[in-house]
Protein backbone atom coordinates (compact mmCIF):
# COMPACT_ATOMS: atom_id res chain seq x y z
CA UNK A 1 0.00 0.00 0.00
CA UNK A 2 1.24 3.45 -0.84
CA UNK A 3 0.47 6.58 1.02
CA UNK A 4 0.76 9.75 -0.98
CA UNK A 5 1.22 13.07 0.69
CA UNK A 6 0.44 16.37 -0.90
CA UNK A 7 1.82 19.12 1.26
CA UNK A 8 1.77 21.52 -1.68
CA UNK A 9 -2.01 21.62 -1.53
CA UNK A 10 -1.76 22.79 2.08
CA UNK A 11 1.19 25.12 1.77
CA UNK A 12 -0.35 26.91 -1.20
CA UNK A 13 -2.97 28.14 1.28
CA UNK A 14 -0.30 29.92 3.29
CA UNK A 15 -2.20 33.22 3.63
CA UNK A 16 -4.84 31.37 5.64
CA UNK A 17 -2.18 29.77 7.84
CA UNK A 18 -0.45 33.11 8.34
CA UNK A 19 -3.68 34.82 9.37
CA UNK A 20 -4.39 31.93 11.73
CA UNK A 21 -0.97 32.24 13.30
CA UNK A 22 -1.43 35.98 13.77
CA UNK A 23 -4.72 35.33 15.54
CA UNK A 24 -3.11 32.73 17.79
CA UNK A 25 -0.31 35.17 18.62
CA UNK A 26 -2.75 38.01 19.29
CA UNK A 27 -5.00 35.87 21.50
CA UNK A 28 -1.98 34.65 23.44
CA UNK A 29 -0.49 38.12 23.85
CA UNK A 30 -3.69 39.67 25.17
CA UNK A 31 -4.54 36.82 27.49
CA UNK A 32 -0.96 36.53 28.78
CA UNK A 33 -0.87 40.21 29.75
CA UNK A 34 -4.35 40.29 31.28
CA UNK A 35 -4.12 36.81 32.77
CA UNK A 36 -0.83 37.40 34.59
CA UNK A 37 -1.93 40.88 35.72
CA UNK A 38 -5.12 39.39 37.12
CA UNK A 39 -3.06 36.60 38.66
CA UNK A 40 -0.95 39.17 40.53
CA UNK A 41 -4.06 40.87 41.90
CA UNK A 42 -5.62 37.56 42.93
CA UNK A 43 -2.36 36.37 44.47
CA UNK A 44 -2.28 39.57 46.51
CA UNK A 45 -5.85 38.92 47.64
CA UNK A 46 -5.00 35.34 48.60
CA UNK A 47 -2.11 36.38 50.79
CA UNK A 48 -3.31 39.78 52.09
CA UNK A 49 -7.06 40.09 51.45
CA UNK A 50 -10.02 39.84 53.81
CA UNK A 51 -10.96 36.25 54.74
CA UNK A 52 -14.16 36.17 52.65
CA UNK A 53 -12.29 37.56 49.64
CA UNK A 54 -9.62 34.90 50.07
CA UNK A 55 -12.35 32.29 50.03
CA UNK A 56 -13.92 33.73 46.87
CA UNK A 57 -10.61 33.79 45.00
CA UNK A 58 -9.67 30.36 46.31
CA UNK A 59 -12.95 28.90 45.05
CA UNK A 60 -12.47 30.58 41.68
CA UNK A 61 -8.96 29.16 41.35
CA UNK A 62 -10.02 25.62 42.25
CA UNK A 63 -13.10 25.73 40.00
CA UNK A 64 -11.05 26.78 37.00
CA UNK A 65 -8.13 24.46 37.67
CA UNK A 66 -10.36 21.42 38.02
CA UNK A 67 -12.46 21.84 34.87
CA UNK A 68 -11.35 21.50 31.23
CA UNK A 69 -10.66 24.61 29.19
CA UNK A 70 -13.04 23.52 26.45
CA UNK A 71 -15.92 23.38 28.93
CA UNK A 72 -15.05 26.85 30.23
CA UNK A 73 -15.02 28.11 26.66
CA UNK A 74 -18.36 26.47 25.80
CA UNK A 75 -19.88 27.79 29.00
CA UNK A 76 -18.82 31.35 28.16
CA UNK A 77 -19.74 31.18 24.47
CA UNK A 78 -22.89 29.03 24.52
CA UNK A 79 -23.99 29.24 28.13
CA UNK A 80 -23.72 32.93 28.98
CA UNK A 81 -25.96 34.17 26.13
CA UNK A 82 -28.80 32.24 27.79
CA UNK A 83 -28.13 34.38 30.86
CA UNK A 84 -28.23 37.55 28.75
CA UNK A 85 -24.49 38.05 28.04
CA UNK A 86 -23.90 37.81 24.30
CA UNK A 87 -20.31 37.59 23.10
CA UNK A 88 -18.71 37.03 19.72
CA UNK A 89 -16.34 34.09 19.31
CA UNK A 90 -13.16 36.14 19.58
CA UNK A 91 -14.20 37.92 22.77
CA UNK A 92 -15.38 34.67 24.31
CA UNK A 93 -12.02 33.08 23.47
CA UNK A 94 -10.04 35.91 25.06
CA UNK A 95 -12.19 35.85 28.19
CA UNK A 96 -11.87 32.08 28.52
CA UNK A 97 -8.09 32.23 28.08
CA UNK A 98 -7.72 35.11 30.56
CA UNK A 99 -9.88 33.34 33.12
CA UNK A 100 -7.97 30.09 32.65
CA UNK A 101 -4.49 31.59 32.82
CA UNK A 102 -5.34 33.89 35.74
CA UNK A 103 -6.34 30.93 37.92
CA UNK A 104 -3.07 29.09 37.32
CA UNK A 105 -1.04 32.32 37.55
CA UNK A 106 -2.62 33.06 40.93
CA UNK A 107 -1.39 29.78 42.37
CA UNK A 108 2.06 30.12 40.80
CA UNK A 109 2.61 33.73 41.91
CA UNK A 110 1.26 33.03 45.37
CA UNK A 111 3.89 30.36 45.81
CA UNK A 112 6.51 32.99 44.98
CA UNK A 113 5.00 35.50 47.40
CA UNK A 114 4.85 32.94 50.19
CA UNK A 115 8.56 32.30 49.75
CA UNK A 116 9.47 35.89 50.62
CA UNK A 117 11.60 35.97 53.78
CA UNK A 118 9.80 37.73 56.62
CA UNK A 119 12.80 39.92 57.33
CA UNK A 120 12.39 41.67 53.99
CA UNK A 121 8.85 42.74 54.81
CA UNK A 122 9.97 43.91 58.27
CA UNK A 123 12.84 45.82 56.68
CA UNK A 124 10.38 47.48 54.28
CA UNK A 125 8.14 48.40 57.22
CA UNK A 126 11.09 49.89 59.10
CA UNK A 127 11.75 52.07 56.05
CA UNK A 128 8.19 53.37 56.38
CA UNK A 129 7.04 51.89 53.09
CA UNK A 130 3.28 51.56 52.81
CA UNK A 131 1.71 48.12 52.42
CA UNK A 132 1.20 48.77 48.72
CA UNK A 133 4.80 49.90 48.22
CA UNK A 134 6.06 46.91 50.13
CA UNK A 135 4.10 44.60 47.89
CA UNK A 136 4.95 46.14 44.52
CA UNK A 137 8.60 46.96 45.22
CA UNK A 138 9.85 44.49 47.80
CA UNK A 139 7.73 41.35 47.60
CA UNK A 140 6.57 41.11 43.99
CA UNK A 141 9.76 41.45 41.88
CA UNK A 142 11.72 38.63 43.54
CA UNK A 143 8.55 36.54 43.72
CA UNK A 144 8.04 36.87 39.97
CA UNK A 145 11.68 36.11 39.38
CA UNK A 146 11.41 32.90 41.38
CA UNK A 147 8.32 31.62 39.59
CA UNK A 148 9.09 32.97 36.10
CA UNK A 149 9.89 29.57 34.56
CA UNK A 150 6.56 28.18 35.79
CA UNK A 151 4.71 31.23 34.47
CA UNK A 152 6.38 30.86 31.09
CA UNK A 153 5.38 27.19 30.90
CA UNK A 154 1.81 27.99 31.88
CA UNK A 155 1.57 30.73 29.24
CA UNK A 156 2.74 28.24 26.63
CA UNK A 157 0.14 25.73 27.81
CA UNK A 158 -2.55 28.39 27.39
CA UNK A 159 -1.23 29.23 23.92
CA UNK A 160 -1.45 25.57 22.92
CA UNK A 161 -4.86 25.35 24.54
CA UNK A 162 -6.09 28.18 22.31
CA UNK A 163 -6.30 25.60 19.50
CA UNK A 164 -9.65 24.71 21.04
CA UNK A 165 -10.97 28.21 20.31
CA UNK A 166 -11.26 27.22 16.64
CA UNK A 167 -14.17 25.02 17.72
CA UNK A 168 -16.30 28.14 18.27
CA UNK A 169 -15.06 29.56 14.94
CA UNK A 170 -12.38 31.90 16.25
CA UNK A 171 -10.16 32.19 13.14
CA UNK A 172 -6.93 31.01 14.83
CA UNK A 173 -4.38 28.50 13.54
CA UNK A 174 -6.28 25.25 14.11
CA UNK A 175 -9.37 26.81 12.56
CA UNK A 176 -7.31 27.69 9.50
CA UNK A 177 -6.08 24.09 9.30
CA UNK A 178 -9.66 22.85 9.52
CA UNK A 179 -10.74 25.25 6.80
CA UNK A 180 -7.93 24.11 4.51
CA UNK A 181 -8.69 20.42 4.98
CA UNK A 182 -12.38 21.04 4.33
CA UNK A 183 -11.43 22.59 0.99
CA UNK A 184 -8.90 20.05 -0.29
CA UNK A 185 -9.50 16.97 1.90
CA UNK A 186 -5.81 16.88 2.82
CA UNK A 187 -6.61 16.51 6.49
CA UNK A 188 -3.45 14.78 7.67
CA UNK A 189 -1.13 17.18 5.85
CA UNK A 190 -3.05 20.24 7.04
CA UNK A 191 -2.85 19.16 10.67
CA UNK A 192 0.81 18.18 10.40
CA UNK A 193 1.65 21.65 9.10
CA UNK A 194 -0.46 23.33 11.79
CA UNK A 195 1.11 21.14 14.50
CA UNK A 196 4.62 22.06 13.37
CA UNK A 197 3.65 25.74 13.36
CA UNK A 198 2.40 25.35 16.93
CA UNK A 199 5.69 23.73 17.90
CA UNK A 200 7.53 26.65 16.33
CA UNK A 201 5.32 29.15 18.17
CA UNK A 202 5.85 27.34 21.46
CA UNK A 203 9.63 27.39 21.12
CA UNK A 204 9.65 31.03 20.00
CA UNK A 205 7.36 32.05 22.85
CA UNK A 206 9.59 30.33 25.42
CA UNK A 207 12.62 32.18 24.08
CA UNK A 208 10.80 35.49 23.99
CA UNK A 209 9.52 35.21 27.55
CA UNK A 210 12.83 34.01 28.94
CA UNK A 211 14.41 37.03 27.30
CA UNK A 212 11.70 39.52 28.30
CA UNK A 213 11.30 38.40 31.91
CA UNK A 214 14.53 39.74 33.41
CA UNK A 215 14.41 42.88 31.24
CA UNK A 216 10.85 44.09 31.65
CA UNK A 217 9.07 42.14 34.33
CA UNK A 218 11.20 41.60 37.40
CA UNK A 219 14.01 43.97 36.54
CA UNK A 220 17.78 43.98 36.90
Amino acid at each position, binding site marked *: *MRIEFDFGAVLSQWPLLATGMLWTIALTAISALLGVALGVVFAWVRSHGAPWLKWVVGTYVELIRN*TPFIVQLFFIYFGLPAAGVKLNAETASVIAMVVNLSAYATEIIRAGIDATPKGQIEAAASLALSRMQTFTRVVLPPALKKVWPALVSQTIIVM*LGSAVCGQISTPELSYAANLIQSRNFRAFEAFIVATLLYLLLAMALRRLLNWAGPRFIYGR
Partner: protein
Amino acid sequence: MVDFSLWDILRNLLLALRWTVVLSLIAFVGGGLVGLGLLVARLSGRRGMDALVGGYVQLFQGTPLLMQLFLAYFGIALFGIQTSAWVAASVALTLYTSAFLTEIWRGCVAAIPKGQWEAADSLALSFGEKLRHVVLPQAVKIAVPPTVGFLVQVVKGTALASVIGFIELTKAGTMITNATFKPFVVYSCVALLYFVLCFPISLYAKTLERKLHVRPA
Protein backbone atom coordinates in the same frame (compact mmCIF):
# COMPACT_ATOMS: atom_id res chain seq x y z
CA MET B 1 -42.41 20.12 22.97
CA VAL B 2 -40.87 17.89 25.55
CA ASP B 3 -39.83 19.51 28.76
CA PHE B 4 -36.53 18.34 30.22
CA SER B 5 -36.05 18.44 33.95
CA LEU B 6 -32.73 19.05 35.62
CA TRP B 7 -32.71 15.39 36.61
CA ASP B 8 -33.09 14.31 32.95
CA ILE B 9 -30.05 16.38 32.06
CA LEU B 10 -27.97 15.27 35.00
CA ARG B 11 -28.88 11.61 34.58
CA ASN B 12 -27.73 11.56 30.96
CA LEU B 13 -24.56 13.45 31.81
CA LEU B 14 -23.79 10.94 34.55
CA LEU B 15 -24.14 8.12 32.01
CA ALA B 16 -21.61 9.88 29.78
CA LEU B 17 -19.29 10.48 32.71
CA ARG B 18 -18.53 6.74 32.64
CA TRP B 19 -16.77 7.15 29.32
CA THR B 20 -14.74 10.07 30.58
CA VAL B 21 -13.57 7.88 33.45
CA VAL B 22 -12.85 4.88 31.21
CA LEU B 23 -10.93 6.95 28.67
CA SER B 24 -8.95 8.61 31.48
CA LEU B 25 -8.01 5.21 32.88
CA ILE B 26 -6.96 3.88 29.46
CA ALA B 27 -4.80 6.96 28.86
CA PHE B 28 -3.35 6.89 32.36
CA VAL B 29 -2.52 3.19 32.46
CA GLY B 30 -1.39 3.07 28.83
CA GLY B 31 0.56 6.28 29.19
CA GLY B 32 2.13 5.00 32.38
CA LEU B 33 3.34 1.82 30.69
CA VAL B 34 4.70 3.61 27.62
CA GLY B 35 6.18 6.30 29.87
CA LEU B 36 7.93 3.68 31.98
CA GLY B 37 9.36 2.08 28.86
CA LEU B 38 10.64 5.43 27.67
CA LEU B 39 12.12 6.13 31.09
CA VAL B 40 14.01 2.84 31.14
CA ALA B 41 15.22 3.45 27.58
CA ARG B 42 16.47 6.83 28.64
CA LEU B 43 18.22 5.54 31.75
CA SER B 44 19.85 2.68 29.86
CA GLY B 45 22.39 5.19 28.58
CA ARG B 46 22.29 3.77 25.09
CA ARG B 47 23.61 6.29 22.62
CA GLY B 48 21.01 8.59 21.09
CA MET B 49 18.26 7.29 23.40
CA ASP B 50 18.33 10.32 25.64
CA ALA B 51 18.04 12.74 22.72
CA LEU B 52 15.35 10.62 21.09
CA VAL B 53 13.12 10.46 24.15
CA GLY B 54 13.84 14.12 24.85
CA GLY B 55 12.62 15.00 21.36
CA TYR B 56 9.52 12.87 21.84
CA VAL B 57 8.72 14.71 25.06
CA GLN B 58 9.30 18.11 23.44
CA LEU B 59 7.09 17.19 20.53
CA PHE B 60 4.14 16.23 22.70
CA GLN B 61 4.58 19.03 25.23
CA GLY B 62 5.07 21.66 22.54
CA THR B 63 2.00 20.95 20.43
CA PRO B 64 -1.71 21.17 21.24
CA LEU B 65 -3.41 17.98 22.40
CA LEU B 66 -6.21 18.85 19.98
CA MET B 67 -3.82 18.62 17.02
CA GLN B 68 -2.47 15.32 18.34
CA LEU B 69 -6.02 13.98 18.44
CA PHE B 70 -6.71 15.12 14.87
CA LEU B 71 -3.43 13.62 13.67
CA ALA B 72 -4.23 10.30 15.35
CA TYR B 73 -7.72 10.34 13.92
CA PHE B 74 -6.67 11.06 10.34
CA GLY B 75 -3.22 9.49 10.59
CA ILE B 76 -4.33 5.99 11.58
CA ALA B 77 -6.89 6.06 8.76
CA LEU B 78 -4.08 6.77 6.29
CA PHE B 79 -2.72 3.29 6.84
CA GLY B 80 -6.01 1.88 5.71
CA ILE B 81 -6.99 0.89 9.22
CA GLN B 82 -10.61 1.50 10.10
CA THR B 83 -10.46 3.93 12.99
CA SER B 84 -13.05 4.92 15.46
CA ALA B 85 -13.05 7.85 17.84
CA TRP B 86 -12.30 5.28 20.55
CA VAL B 87 -9.06 4.11 18.97
CA ALA B 88 -7.88 7.56 17.95
CA ALA B 89 -8.64 9.11 21.34
CA SER B 90 -7.00 6.23 23.23
CA VAL B 91 -3.87 6.33 21.10
CA ALA B 92 -3.48 10.12 21.18
CA LEU B 93 -4.14 10.44 24.91
CA THR B 94 -1.87 7.51 25.73
CA LEU B 95 1.04 9.03 23.82
CA TYR B 96 0.36 12.47 25.29
CA THR B 97 0.23 11.06 28.82
CA SER B 98 3.37 8.98 28.31
CA ALA B 99 5.37 12.05 27.29
CA PHE B 100 4.41 13.96 30.42
CA LEU B 101 4.77 11.02 32.81
CA THR B 102 8.18 10.01 31.50
CA GLU B 103 9.38 13.57 31.99
CA ILE B 104 7.96 13.79 35.52
CA TRP B 105 9.52 10.45 36.45
CA ARG B 106 12.86 11.36 34.95
CA GLY B 107 12.95 14.28 37.37
CA CYS B 108 12.21 11.91 40.26
CA VAL B 109 15.00 9.53 39.23
CA ALA B 110 17.38 12.47 38.89
CA ALA B 111 16.60 13.37 42.51
CA ILE B 112 18.10 10.05 43.69
CA PRO B 113 21.64 10.74 44.90
CA LYS B 114 24.34 9.60 42.53
CA GLY B 115 25.96 7.59 45.31
CA GLN B 116 23.05 5.16 45.16
CA TRP B 117 23.86 4.31 41.54
CA GLU B 118 27.54 3.98 42.39
CA ALA B 119 26.86 1.79 45.39
CA ALA B 120 24.69 -0.45 43.22
CA ASP B 121 27.49 -0.54 40.65
CA SER B 122 30.01 -1.60 43.26
CA LEU B 123 27.71 -4.48 44.22
CA ALA B 124 27.92 -5.62 40.59
CA LEU B 125 24.20 -5.31 40.05
CA SER B 126 23.02 -5.42 36.46
CA PHE B 127 21.14 -2.46 34.95
CA GLY B 128 17.80 -4.15 35.56
CA GLU B 129 18.69 -5.04 39.14
CA LYS B 130 19.89 -1.52 39.85
CA LEU B 131 16.57 -0.11 38.68
CA ARG B 132 14.42 -2.74 40.37
CA HIS B 133 16.12 -2.95 43.74
CA VAL B 134 17.83 0.39 44.28
CA VAL B 135 16.68 3.33 42.18
CA LEU B 136 13.02 2.83 41.34
CA PRO B 137 11.81 1.97 44.87
CA GLN B 138 13.22 5.28 46.07
CA ALA B 139 12.05 7.24 43.03
CA VAL B 140 8.50 5.92 43.31
CA LYS B 141 8.12 7.56 46.70
CA ILE B 142 8.82 11.02 45.27
CA ALA B 143 6.95 10.28 42.07
CA VAL B 144 3.54 9.50 43.53
CA PRO B 145 2.28 13.04 44.32
CA PRO B 146 3.08 14.64 40.94
CA THR B 147 1.78 11.55 39.14
CA VAL B 148 -1.54 11.73 40.96
CA GLY B 149 -1.60 15.46 40.21
CA PHE B 150 -1.10 14.77 36.53
CA LEU B 151 -4.13 12.48 36.53
CA VAL B 152 -6.22 15.66 36.76
CA GLN B 153 -4.65 16.89 33.52
CA VAL B 154 -5.48 13.57 31.89
CA VAL B 155 -9.13 13.73 32.95
CA LYS B 156 -9.38 17.28 31.63
CA GLY B 157 -7.56 16.24 28.47
CA THR B 158 -10.22 13.64 27.67
CA ALA B 159 -12.67 16.53 27.19
CA LEU B 160 -10.92 17.28 23.90
CA ALA B 161 -11.80 13.82 22.59
CA SER B 162 -15.30 15.23 22.18
CA VAL B 163 -14.01 17.18 19.19
CA ILE B 164 -13.28 14.02 17.19
CA GLY B 165 -16.68 12.64 18.06
CA PHE B 166 -15.91 10.57 21.14
CA ILE B 167 -19.03 10.68 23.27
CA GLU B 168 -17.91 11.51 26.77
CA LEU B 169 -19.05 14.15 29.23
CA THR B 170 -18.36 17.23 27.10
CA LYS B 171 -19.79 15.75 23.91
CA ALA B 172 -22.85 14.59 25.82
CA GLY B 173 -23.20 18.14 27.11
CA THR B 174 -23.20 19.49 23.57
CA MET B 175 -25.72 16.89 22.43
CA ILE B 176 -28.02 17.53 25.37
CA THR B 177 -27.75 21.28 24.76
CA ASN B 178 -28.91 20.74 21.19
CA ALA B 179 -31.91 18.79 22.43
CA THR B 180 -32.89 20.97 25.37
CA PHE B 181 -31.78 24.48 24.35
CA LYS B 182 -30.51 25.01 27.88
CA PRO B 183 -26.78 25.65 27.39
CA PHE B 184 -26.36 27.53 30.65
CA VAL B 185 -27.76 24.76 32.80
CA VAL B 186 -26.15 21.94 30.83
CA TYR B 187 -22.63 23.36 30.71
CA SER B 188 -22.86 24.31 34.40
CA CYS B 189 -23.67 20.69 35.15
CA VAL B 190 -20.85 19.46 32.90
CA ALA B 191 -18.35 21.75 34.63
CA LEU B 192 -19.65 20.68 38.02
CA LEU B 193 -19.25 16.99 37.20
CA TYR B 194 -15.65 17.53 36.04
CA PHE B 195 -15.03 19.42 39.26
CA VAL B 196 -16.51 16.64 41.35
CA LEU B 197 -14.23 14.19 39.55
CA CYS B 198 -11.03 16.27 39.59
CA PHE B 199 -11.11 18.21 42.83
CA PRO B 200 -10.75 15.19 45.15
CA ILE B 201 -7.79 14.02 43.06
CA SER B 202 -6.21 17.47 43.32
CA LEU B 203 -6.73 17.51 47.07
CA TYR B 204 -5.31 14.00 47.41
CA ALA B 205 -2.23 14.99 45.38
CA LYS B 206 -1.73 18.01 47.60
CA THR B 207 -2.03 15.90 50.76
CA LEU B 208 0.48 13.38 49.42
CA GLU B 209 2.89 16.18 48.63
CA ARG B 210 2.58 17.65 52.09
CA LYS B 211 3.20 14.26 53.68
CA LEU B 212 6.29 13.77 51.56
CA HIS B 213 7.74 17.09 52.64
CA VAL B 214 7.00 16.62 56.33
CA ARG B 215 9.02 13.40 56.44
CA PRO B 216 12.52 14.16 57.71
CA ALA B 217 15.00 14.05 54.86
